[in-house]
């Protein structure tokens, strides 16, 4: 067993089994939690998530994580990986379910619905799609450019500062599939459901030290 303490944020809105199974497979201990003290004690924070933006914000506030998470990752610089909704919640504003909600605003940019450009573009964007790395980053160490990862989402983060973009993926239009701001990573795809390449990416993240 690896002796890092991985905290997986649990907002009680999504299936966390996939990510904890992936961590177990990689030989890491993890704690599934919504307690700030556990997050404080962790070496790495993973924020997985499926579901809607408004529900996510509501739950972050309910568990007193809205300000605390900001502190922990933006100020104290703890290594953080947001997956899917867990990445989108770092954005500025979301409009899912016709409700305007403010995200953590760590990654400036709004959460927008994928545009249906033609009949071939199905929404949600479900399935394996290429991740085009526009810059080298250790999160993709030993993962070839344009490797397929598994996506399932209807919204994406429209990032203002393009300097943070690590990769784009195309579904009608290009959208940001991996972002990095210093210690903070976000991926729109699901590495925990992307077979060996996905496990490899999670392992790369966990090797990053604070």
């Amino acid at each position, binding site marked *: 067993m690896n002796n890092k303490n991985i905290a997986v944020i649990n907002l009680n*809105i*999504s*299936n966390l*089994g*996939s990510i904890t*199974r*992936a961590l177990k*497979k990689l030989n890491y201990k993890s704690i599934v939690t919504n307690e700030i003290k556990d997050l404080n004690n962790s070496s790495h924070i993973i924020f997985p998530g*499926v*579901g*809607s933006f408004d529900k996510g914000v509501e739950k972050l506030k309910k568990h007193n994580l809205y300000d605390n998470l900001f502190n922990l990752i933006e100020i104290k610089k703890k290594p953080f990986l947001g997956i899917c909704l867990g990445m989108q919640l770092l954005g500025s504003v979301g409009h899912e379910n016709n409700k305007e909600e403010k995200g953590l605003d760590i990654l400036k940019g709004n959460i927008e619905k994928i545009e*249906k450009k033609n*009949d*071939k573009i*199905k*929404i*949600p*964007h*479900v*399935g*394996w*799609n*290429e991740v085009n790395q526009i810059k080298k980053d250790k999160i993709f160490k030993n993962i070839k450019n344009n490797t*397929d990862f*598994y*996506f*399932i*989402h*209807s919204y994406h983060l429209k990032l203002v500062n393009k300097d943070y973009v690590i990769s784009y993926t*195309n*579904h009608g239009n290009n959208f940001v599939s991996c972002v990095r701001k210093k210690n903070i990573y976000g991926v729109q795809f*699901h590495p*925990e*459901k*992307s*077979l*060996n390449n*996905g*496990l490899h990416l999670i392992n790369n993240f966990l090797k990053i030290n604070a």
Partner: protein
Amino acid sequence: MLKIRIIPTILFNNFKLVKGISFDSWRTVGSIMQAVKIYNLREVDELIVMDISATNNKSKVDLDLVNEIANETFMPLTVGGGIKSIEDVSNLLEAGADKVSINTSTFNNDFFVKEASKMFGRQCIVASVDYKIIDKEIVIFSNSGKVSQKVKFIDHIKKMEALGAGEIILTSINLDGTMKGYDIETLSKASANVEIPIIASGGAGKLKDFTDAVKNTDVSALAAASIYHFTNTTPRDVKIYLNSEKIPVRIN
């Protein structure tokens, strides 16, 4: 570019892996876990696992089995069979399913899909629609093909989309297990009428069946069982063939 997903379907009944013809004449074709392990080893795109006896026996999918399957699958896993309540969905997701496939209950309770989708998110609700062509009409069936429904086909799939299903798996009962090819006409009609992805199911028997479905319809995924159980063809063989026909697939 988004890839066409090639999905093996695992049907089971009392812990046995089975396959039938037109939802009948079931025969045992192996062990579930053995099949799951092989598909994980072969890195398939996704897995669909269905308990075909749950609805009609009024039983539930075995959660320990789902947990065991999930421990072996680091790809998306859809589970179906006898799902009736929000609690059933919650239990399956907790046991390790990423998506649940709901069929019979979509007819018994209009708001079930809506509620499940609101609660767990559109991405994990798959509406399963089984149908037969009778006198040139598409007739929808529930209860593993045993009960016919009056609702019009297009109305039903549009309703599933409106209620919050994230995908639709469409199975031709006539073609199921026959290995005579997918029902291009119905798949084409369906994929032109909804925005959400359609998974084609029923009839795949040779490599060309897969390309015919992709070239003539807008389906997003191709599910199959018999071809993998009864021939030497693997999901990888299908993808290599599709790739040679310039259809985007994930080849690892």
